[in-house]
């Protein structure tokens, strides 16, 4: 503000000087001109005077000559009229002109027209006139009878006047000569004065001109220096500022002055005169471009409050693409109005910042926070499980997920031969995921239960579709990847927890510690896979979820010589049997009470060595296998008609429990409802070389018997030669 006032003042001062200088210049020139006019007119008058004075010399001589001619004509009786007329004319002309020189007034000019003669005041001229009058006055009187008298009078006067003329003629001529010379001197003096005035005026004008010139050159140099300094300052700012700065006019054209950073931000040069919207169009999506164009229109409407519409700025944070999409950046545009002196909106100042690094950092931060939260939740979800057990689960989960991936890979590498190929894929991977979910539920690992359940949801949804394509399966692969990542993340976490535990509680190298450090040994050692407390927790949780009461008793498992894969497989089967018993077998307390049973149901797991192997029984005192419910489920599945099913006996109907995708549960939950369970148990038992059988009495019990051959899994212990 201060600067602008100073500028205004210096501008006024500058104008005052130039106005005064130019006024002086004009005054000098006008003065010279006026004087020139005045003196020129004087000189003109003087020239007439000189001319007429010169004519007086001639007239004085002509008077004398005409007198002599008249005398001669009179004496010789010649024609007197002509010389007399000539004499009259010459006399009048000489007399009138001499009077005009003496008193000032009208005279007859050289061309016969009247001219005004000024009275001669010059002393020399005056003297000449007076002397001329002294001679002329008697001369004139003597001439009167000649000019106006009759012939006798004229003849009588003529000798005297001729005699006078001859005596004084030269004197009159001399005086007229003096007069002429005096008038010439006077005119010459005026001409000199005029020259002097002109020289003086022009000198002053020139001096004034040089003053102006000097003053202005100095001012121009100062202004140039100031402008150059201001330009340099502006240039320095524009060169060094990290933001892109530019001015837009009402046509949204970019001004010639813009910051160097603009070139860096937009990867181009020469913005001056370019259309801002067109430049924008090249780097942002069409939708943003259109919104930005509308927004810029609003900004140029002066009645709109720019602060109120700032939140509508579509370019506040925009993703821009450069070099034909080879490079992308996040840019932030800000707009400010620039007004002129009349407070009229003149320009828009655009500030552009490259905020890519900032946005990336924000994204990374957000991502890190999300990951940290996930890890905390993950940790909270696994803390209740002992590391060796968890590690065992993770190994099995890893194997299961790899099996799923191997199945996908197997189908993925084939050319599509049959339309039902995808259905087969889904059918193959479903039991694997289901088993994994069961194991996770056994350990109360909600993270894996939920994810495996979501995986099952996706499979079920795809199985329900009439047409499935390869890219529909992409969601399965993504879920598989996430599950694998979770397994890996939990494994890393377990290792970290174990490491921390060892750091703060360095225990002697006991068997347990060794098993922690040597996971491979843990995987083949007879880990407590069949520990009853886990099954009790599983049964309890399932019962709680279903509003039931249950107690689980397990015994005899210590006699089983099962390790590694075989133990894991049996464990999977037992998990499924217990789930089946609690979910489908045990009734809710009210129903049990009505049936005369204890409110809490009982599940018993019993293992014993048999003659040719092992026998494991899972018994529950629930409702048993209801053939009619199975019939209804089979009908609902649409695989069999009512007519077909009506012909089936109870034994055949109960055989439906081994059908995949058939469930008697009313709704799908994480516990049941997929119709996958007993078929998986059967496959697993058969994979161990065993058999699965069941016995049931509706309303009283259901018992499953697994018979396994000899010693299983001991070949996996990896004995080495002693």
């Amino acid at each position: 503000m201060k600067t602008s006032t100073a500028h205004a003042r210096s501008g006024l001062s500058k104008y005052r000087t130039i106005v005064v200088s130019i006024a002086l210049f004009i005054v000098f020139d006008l003065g010279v001109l006026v004087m020139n006019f005045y003196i020129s007119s004087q000189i003109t008058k003087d020239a007439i005077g000189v001319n007429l004075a010169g004519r007086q010399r001639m007239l004085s001589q002509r008077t004398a000559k005409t007198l002599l001619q008249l005398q001669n004509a009179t004496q010789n009786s010649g024609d007197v009229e002509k010389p007399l007329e000539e004499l009259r004319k010459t006399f009048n002309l000489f007399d009138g002109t001499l009077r005009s020189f003496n008193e000032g007034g009208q005279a007859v000019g050289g061309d016969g027209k009247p001219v005004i003669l000024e009275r001669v005041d010059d002393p020399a001229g005056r003297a000449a006139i007076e002397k001329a009058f002294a001679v002329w006055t008697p001369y004139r009187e003597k001439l009167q009878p000649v000019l106006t008298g009759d012939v006798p009078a004229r003849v009588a006067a003529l000798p005297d006047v001729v005699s006078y003329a001859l005596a004084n003629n030269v004197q009159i001529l001399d005086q007229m000569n003096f007069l002429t010379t005096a008038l010439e001197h006077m005119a010459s003096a005026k001409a000199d004065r005029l020259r002097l005035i002109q020289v003086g005026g022009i000198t002053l004008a020139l001096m004034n001109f040089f003053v102006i010139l000097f003053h202005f050159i100095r001012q121009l140099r100062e202004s140039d220096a100031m402008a150059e300094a201001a330009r340099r300052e502006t240039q320095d700012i524009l060169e060094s500022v990290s933001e892109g700065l530019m001015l837009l006019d009402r046509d949204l054209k970019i001004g010639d002055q813009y910051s160097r950073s603009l070139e860096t931000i937009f990867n181009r040069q020469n913005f001056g005169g370019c259309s801002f919207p067109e430049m924008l169009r090249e780097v942002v999506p069409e939708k943003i471009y259109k919104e930005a164009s509308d927004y810029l229109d609003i900004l140029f409407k002066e009645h709109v409050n720019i602060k109120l519409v700032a939140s509508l700025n579509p370019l506040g944070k925009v993703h821009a693409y450069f070099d034909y999409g080879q490079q992308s950046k996040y840019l932030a545009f800000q707009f400010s109005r620039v007004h002129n002196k009349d407070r009229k909106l003149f320009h828009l100042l655009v500030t552009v910042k490259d905020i890519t690094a900032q946005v990336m950092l924000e994204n990374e931060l957000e991502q890190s926070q999300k990951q940290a939260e996930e890890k905390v939740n993950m940790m909270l979800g696994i803390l209740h499980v002992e590391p060796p057990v968890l590690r065992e689960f993770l190994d099995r989960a890893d194997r299961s997920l790899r099996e799923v991936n191997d199945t996908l890979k197997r189908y993925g590498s084939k050319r599509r031969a049959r339309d039902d190929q995808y259905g087969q894929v889904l059918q193959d991977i479903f039991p694997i995921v289901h088993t994994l979910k069961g194991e996770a539920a056994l350990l109360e690992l909600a993270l894996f239960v939920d994810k495996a359940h979501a995986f099952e949801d996706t499979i079920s949804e795809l199985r329900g579709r009439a047409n499935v394509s390869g890219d529909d399966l992409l969601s399965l692969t993504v879920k598989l990847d996430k599950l694998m990542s979770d397994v890996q993340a939990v494994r890393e976490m377990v290792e970290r927890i174990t490491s921390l535990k060892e750091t703060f509680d360095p225990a002697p190298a006991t068997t347990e510690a060794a098993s922690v450090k040597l996971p491979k040994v843990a995987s083949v050692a007879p880990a407590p896979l069949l520990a009853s407390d886990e099954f009790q927790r599983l049964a309890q949780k399932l019962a709680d979820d279903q509003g039931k009461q249950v107690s689980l008793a397990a015994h005899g498992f210590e006699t089983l010589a099962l390790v590694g894969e075989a133990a894991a497989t049996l464990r999977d089967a037992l998990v499924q049997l217990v789930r089946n018993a609690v979910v489908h077998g045990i009734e809710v307390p009210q129903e049990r009470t009505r049936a005369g049973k204890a409110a809490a149901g009982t599940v018993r797991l019993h293992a014993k060595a048999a003659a040719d192997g092992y026998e494991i029984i899972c018994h529950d005192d629930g409702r048993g296998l209801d053939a009619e419910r199975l019939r209804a489920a089979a009908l609902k599945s649409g695989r069999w008609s009512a007519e077909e099913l009506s012909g089936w006996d109870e034994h055949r109907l109960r055989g439906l429990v081994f059908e995949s995708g058939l469930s008697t549960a009313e709704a799908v939950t994480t516990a049941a409802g997929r119709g996958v369970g007993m078929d998986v148990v059967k496959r697993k038992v058969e994979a161990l070389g065993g058999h699965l059988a069941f016995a049931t009495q509706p309303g009283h019990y259901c018992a499953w018997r697994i018979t396994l051959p000899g010693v299983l899994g001991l070949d996996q212990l990896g004995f080495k030669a002693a």
Partner: protein
Amino acid sequence: MNEQHLKIFVDSATHYFKHLSNEPAAVQVPYLIDHDESLIYDYTGVIGIAGLYKGNVYFSAPEGMMRYLLTTQGENKHTPEHCLDVVGEIANTLAGNARRELGSEFLISVPFKIAGKPDMMLLAKKSRSYAIPIQWRFYMAVLVVSVEE
């Protein structure tokens, strides 16, 4: 890398075939591969990804498929350069669509193309890569998305 991101790449590849030959390509069962698994055919177009996500996406196809594509386009010359041009064009399509559709977390590089089978492609080590088999006519190609955060 979520399903939506993957679909952008898959759709770009399949639309390329549909646009070029009016015969859509079929996506086969997608699966995961580890960083030490080699899955590559005769010609491969690769785009690099930087930013919040890092890695690469490549489309690899057997020579037969490239030749057939050239024939479909009325090109009788089936030199390795011609085949490379085709796979380069597919990679360009992938890169172009990715730049348009993906968010700022993805900075897409200029595509490059490879003839022959390198011993190993540089796949993401921290996580698995997605292998999406694509069948067009009798040929199987693969789109591999190998990106980690």
